[in-house]
C-alpha cells in the first residue's frame, strides 16, 4: 500500500541534504558581469533549459541527479523547463559538436533576455578530451556567450548545485 508510506513520509525527517556553501568570489564575479551587461534582475528563481551539445551523457546523468530527493533542486527555486522559450538559464553540456551548432544558436535565439549561459563539464569548457577533433568546436564559448563554467568530468551534483546557487546569489546581491 502506498498511502501509509506517503502519510509516514509527511511526518518523517526530510531525506534532503543541506545546501552547499557558495564561493563568494564566484558570486561577486557573476554580479559584476551582470552589472556590466546591465541585466535586469531575474528574482530568486531560475528556469533552466538543459541542452546537450554532444556530451557522452555522463553530464546528463549528474544533471538529472540534481532532481532526486537528496539534492532536490526545486527547493531553491531552480527548476528545469521544457523549452528555451521559458528559460532564464541555458545549461549546456558537451564540446559543441558541429552537428549541434545550428540547434545551439536557435536555442539561444529562443531564450529571452536577461539570461545566463552555463557551460557544464570539461567538454563544454574547452572541448575536454575531444579538443581538436574535426567534428567539434572545442567548447561552448565558440558558439554561445558563456557566463559561468562548471568544470568536471562530469561535475558532481554538489558542484553543479554550487554553481547554480551562485547565479541566484549574484542576482539577489544586486538589488
Amino acid at each position, binding site marked *: 500500500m502506498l498511502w501509509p508510506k506517503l502519510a509516514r513520509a509527511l511526518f518523517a525527517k526530510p*531525506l534532503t541534504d543541506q545546501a552547499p556553501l557558495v564561493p563568494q568570489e564566484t558570486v561577486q564575479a557573476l554580479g559584476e558581469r551582470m552589472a556590466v551587461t546591465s541585466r535586469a534582475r531575474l528574482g530568486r528563481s531560475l528556469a533552466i533549459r538543459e541542452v546537450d551539445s554532444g556530451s*557522452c551523457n555522463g553530464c546528463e*546523468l549528474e544533471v538529472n541527479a540534481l532532481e532526486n*530527493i537528496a539534492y532536490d533542486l526545486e527547493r531553491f527555486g531552480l527548476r528545469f523547463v521544457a523549452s528555451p522559450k521559458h528559460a532564464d538559464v541555458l545549461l549546456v553540456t558537451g564540446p559543441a559538436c*558541429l552537428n549541434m551548432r545550428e540547434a545551439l544558436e536557435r536555442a539561444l535565439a529562443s531564450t529571452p533576455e536577461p539570461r545566463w549561459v552555463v557551460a557544464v563539464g570539461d567538454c563544454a569548457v574547452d572541448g575536454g*578530451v575531444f579538443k581538436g577533433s*574535426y567534428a567539434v568546436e572545442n567548447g561552448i564559448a565558440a558558439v554561445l556567450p558563456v557566463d559561468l563554467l562548471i568544470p568536471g*568530468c*562530469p561535475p558532481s551534483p554538489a558542484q553543479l548545485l554550487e554553481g547554480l546557487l551562485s547565479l541566484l546569489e549574484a542576482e539577489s546581491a544586486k538589488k
Partner: protein
Amino acid sequence: MMGPASRLIRGGNPQGAKPYERFLLSPTAWGQLPAALQQETALALLGLWADATQVHACFLHEPGNEALLASTPAAGWNYAALSPARPGAMRFERMILELWGHHAEGAVDLRPWLDHGRWNLRHPLAAKPIPFAGEAPQPEFLPTVGDGIHQIPVGPIHAGVIESGHFRFSVQGEAIVRLEQRLGYKHKGTLSLMLGTSPRAAVRYAARLSGDSTVAHSWAFSAAVEAALGVTPPPRALHLRALMLELERVHNHLNDWGFVCNDVAFAYPHARCGLLREGVLRAIAAAFGHRLMMDRVLPGGVAPDIAPRGTEAILAALAAVEAEIPVLMQIYEAHASLQDRVVTTGYLRPDLARAFAAGGHVGRASGRAFDARRLPQHLPHANLHFDVPMLEAGDVDARVRIRVLELGQSIALVREILASLPAGELMAPMPARAGEGAAMIEGFRGECLHWVALDDGGLIGALFPRDPSWLQWPLLEAAIEDNIVADFPLCNKSFNCSYSGVDL
C-alpha cells in the same frame, strides 16, 4: 553445426586475431555472403565497420555462442552490402560510406547518417579525406502514404534532460504510423582521436563513448587490447572490473525503472529509485573515487584499488536497494493507472529482436537470451554464479521486469565478488607490439563489442567500438508503431538506447 555462411567465412584466410579469428575473404567470396546468410539464420550480425582498406563484420554463431570475424578488401571503394540479408547492417553501411568512403553495393539504404554536411571534410577516416565546404543538405525521410497523415518533428533538443537526436513521427490521429530516427548530432570524431595513440591514451575515449556505460566500454576496449597482446590482467583486477560492471548495472537499472514510472507521471517509485541510486553512487564514490567509475578500468588492469572502507559502503547501499525492491515492485504491480500504461505498450516482436540480434534488456524481454557474461572469455563472470532472466512479452513492462530481475542478480554478484576478492597486483605490464583482438563485455544495455588492431609500435592502427544501441535503436522504430504519441517517451525510456554511443 556450420551453415553455408559459416563455411564460407571459415574458408577465408585467417588473420591471427584473438580470441575470435578473423577471416579475410576475396570480394567474390564476400559477394556470396548475403545469400549464404539468408540460408543460415543462426549466424547473427553483431557489427559491421571498416578501416582505410577493408570492411569488417563480426558475427555470432548463436547455438554455439561463438563469435567470428570476416573481412574483405574494399576493392575500388566497393563491397557487397549485407543489409539485404541482415537488417541490422543498414546503419553500419551508412556510417561506413560516410566515415571511410566505402560504398555498399546493393545496400537497402545509403542516406546520410552521421555526416550532416557540417564538417569541413568528407570521409574523415579515409586514407585521404576530401575537403568539403557547402550548404548542409536537408534530411530526407521515408515517405508515409495515407489519409490525414501529418508529421511531428521532435529534436535534436528534447523537452527533458536527455541526449540530442531527432525523431520524425508520421501520425494518423493519435496513432504513430511511422517513426524515423535521425541521429548523428553528437558525432565527436571519437575514432579519429583514438587512431595512432597508445592504448593507455585511447582508453579515456572508450570511457567516454557513452558515459552511463563507462565501465563496460573501457573494459571491452582494454580486453580487446589485452587479447591482441596476449596479456591476462591479474585476478584482483578482473574481480574489481566485474564489481564495477555490476555496480554500473545496478545504478542504471534503478535510474531506468524510476524514469519509466516518471514517464507515466507516477512519482513515488521515481523518487525512491532516485534516492536508492544516489546511495549507490555515493558508495561507489567512496570505494573508487568517482561516482560513475570513469577511467578506473585501464589496459592491463584497474587503478586505483578499492578504498579500505569501500566494501562496507557498497554492501550497505546495496542492502538498502535489496530491501526496497519488493516494496517498489508491489507498488508497481498494484497500481492499475501505471500497469495500464506499461503492459502491451511498445511491443517488440521476438522475431525482430532475433533478426537484429538485439542484446541486453531489449533482447531478453523479447525472447533472445544472449548475455555476453556467459561467454567463456568473459572472466571472471564465467566462474561466478548468476541467472540470466528472459521474458517473451516484449512490452515496456517486460523490459522493466528484466531490469528488476537483473538488479537482484547483480546485487548477489557484487556480494560474491567482494567475498572472493583475490589479493595481489592490479596491473599487468603491457608490451608495445603489433596484434589484433576483440572483446565483448556485457554492460547494462547489452554487449559492448570492441575490436582493435595494433601496429608494430603498439599504437592503435584500426579500431571499432560497437555500442549495443546500434542494434536496438532500429527496433524502437518497430516497437512504437500503432502506439500513441504520448507513449513515445515511455517506450524510448524502456529501451534507453545511447545516442552518444552510436554517434561516435
